[in-house]
């Protein structure tokens, strides 16, 4: 959670595609891997506010996305090459670091046993379920705290204190209260998803431009109508940024849940392989977590781009 902490407090950063636009003349400087780094601080930066609106739009349309994506694969390819070379040269023992082809074989083996997609499937299911629950609760509570001064004063300190508790700390308690079945894992993921959404939504709604709100009121809007017409749309880019952050955090909390008490899933694969000395499977699990997490984030980035186009 700590690496996302600062970003959750500052949802107004530049989305990665705007950063691309800034260096649009030289696409080579904007490698695709950049998106992962920037994903911590996406948000509303008024893409067209700088120069002419038309030019900003044209540059963001990303006609050169193909080459950029390929460039982003350069570093992973280099890493695999280094991995291949170092294991072949005997820098590491196979127990410390098995060669890439062993990890690949381990994957094939798991597919043949029918466990590969089972692990992925159950982990994905836990993430999506927990994420949905946590995000909805985060939206609701964040809206409450962001819109009502009273709720803010009443609840914000308590929620803030709970937020300070790391995900792992919940695992024993959840196992005791809810048991070691699916519920406790989904709950933990939901906890992980809740806080980024809650924080960004509350902050975004609290900081909606007071002048816009007054203009809305001056034109006869109030209550729910004001919320739907002015406040929510104004908060939209930050809300989506929070939702994206929460999805990333869901994957982090998933591993915490599966490490301690489970019989399936990528976290289980990790801990089970450790117990059996299968370093190849451990590495496979980590690669899968990285790929799945990044895939989820990339899909979300597309959604986010649309939302930013629509609501800014």
């Amino acid at each position: 959670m700590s690496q996302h902490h600062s970003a959750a407090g500052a949802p107004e950063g530049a989305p990665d595609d705007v950063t691309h636009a800034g260096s649009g003349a030289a696409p080579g400087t904007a490698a695709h891997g950049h998106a992962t780094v920037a994903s911590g601080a996406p948000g509303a930066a008024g893409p067209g506010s700088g120069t002419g609106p038309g030019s900003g739009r044209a540059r963001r349309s990303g006609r050169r996305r193909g080459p950029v994506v390929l460039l982003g694969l350069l570093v992973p390819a280099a890493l695999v090459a280094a991995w291949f070379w170092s294991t072949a040269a005997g820098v590491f023992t196979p127990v410390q670091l098995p060669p890439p082809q062993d990890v690949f074989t381990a994957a094939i083996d798991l597919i043949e046993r029918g466990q590969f997609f089972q692990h992925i499937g159950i982990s994905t299911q836990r993430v999506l379920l927990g994420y949905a629950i946590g995000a909805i609760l985060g939206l609701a509570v964040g809206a409450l705290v962001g819109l009502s001064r009273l709720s803010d004063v009443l609840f914000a300190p308590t929620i803030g204190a709970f937020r300070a508790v790391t995900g792992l700390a919940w695992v024993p308690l959840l196992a005791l209260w809810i048991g070691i079945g699916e519920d406790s894992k989904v709950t933990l993921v939901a906890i992980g998803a809740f806080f980024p959404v809650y924080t960004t939504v509350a902050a975004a709604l609290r900081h909606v431009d007071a002048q816009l709100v007054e203009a809305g009121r001056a034109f006869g809007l109030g209550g729910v109508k004001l919320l739907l017409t002015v406040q929510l749309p104004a908060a939209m880019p930050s809300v989506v940024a929070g939702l994206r952050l929460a999805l990333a955090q869901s994957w982090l909390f998933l591993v915490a849940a599966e490490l301690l008490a489970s019989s399936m899933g990528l976290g289980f694969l990790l801990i089970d392989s450790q117990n059996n000395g299968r370093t190849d499977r451990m590495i496979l699990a980590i690669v899968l977590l990285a790929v799945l997490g990044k895939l989820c984030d990339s899909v979300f980035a597309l959604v986010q781009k649309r939302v930013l186009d629509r609501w800014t």
Partner: protein
Amino acid sequence: MTEHTGQAGTSSAHSATQDAVALRAVGKSFSAHTVLRDVTLQIPARRIVAIIGASGSGKSTLLRLIGGLDTPTDGAVNIDGRAVAQYDPRCAFAFQEARLLPWRTVADNVALGLPRDEDRARGRTRIGELLELVGLTEFAGHKPKEISGGMAQRTSLARALARTPSVLLLDEPFGALDALTRLRMHDLLLDVHAAEPTTVIFVTHDVDEALVLADTIVVLGKEEGRPGATVLQTVSPSQQRPRSHSDPEFTRLRQQLLAALGVQLRSEA
């Protein structure tokens, strides 16, 4: 308005029903700080009234009190003889900043001004007319970030007009615009007023702007040794619009108003 051209405060309250806007002994304080004191004004329907004054003289505050965006500490504000409500539906406000919703198109921003109970089809026709009036028909589908500052102000004006207000309140609507756009906006305001003659009250710190546009000019300012600003004088030029800067009355009133604002021009003394 000729009967009110002297010192405000001396005017009687007998005409409350025929006046569009009537302020009686209005004062406004923020905690211990008095902004306005004893403001009494009567503005007949369909007049264009300018409120001028040095910065910090409570011009915007006065406008906000008339529109029901703030409530007075003392006195009463009436429109057509009835007290002003919070965010009064009879008023429409165009702010100093355009304050458009960035995610809505120009047309949809104008639509925000339509009365809540407006029929949908009629509303659309009305938006079309207003966009035509302010010359933004071809920008109807643009978003605020895609148009210029002057266009945004025109959108803001159209949004206010969409409310078909009895009182149109403009808070330094042209302040942020360049000189040329500003002149065009002056003409636009007069055109709009000719097409749909509502009562217009606008705040400006520009004496020339007030003299070009207004039937009546209200000068707000502080009196020696007393807290808060009040009406120092009201002036109603007799010259017909469009008014020439070289007209003797224009020059005379300009000096009079500047003097009231505490500006002595050596070049024109």
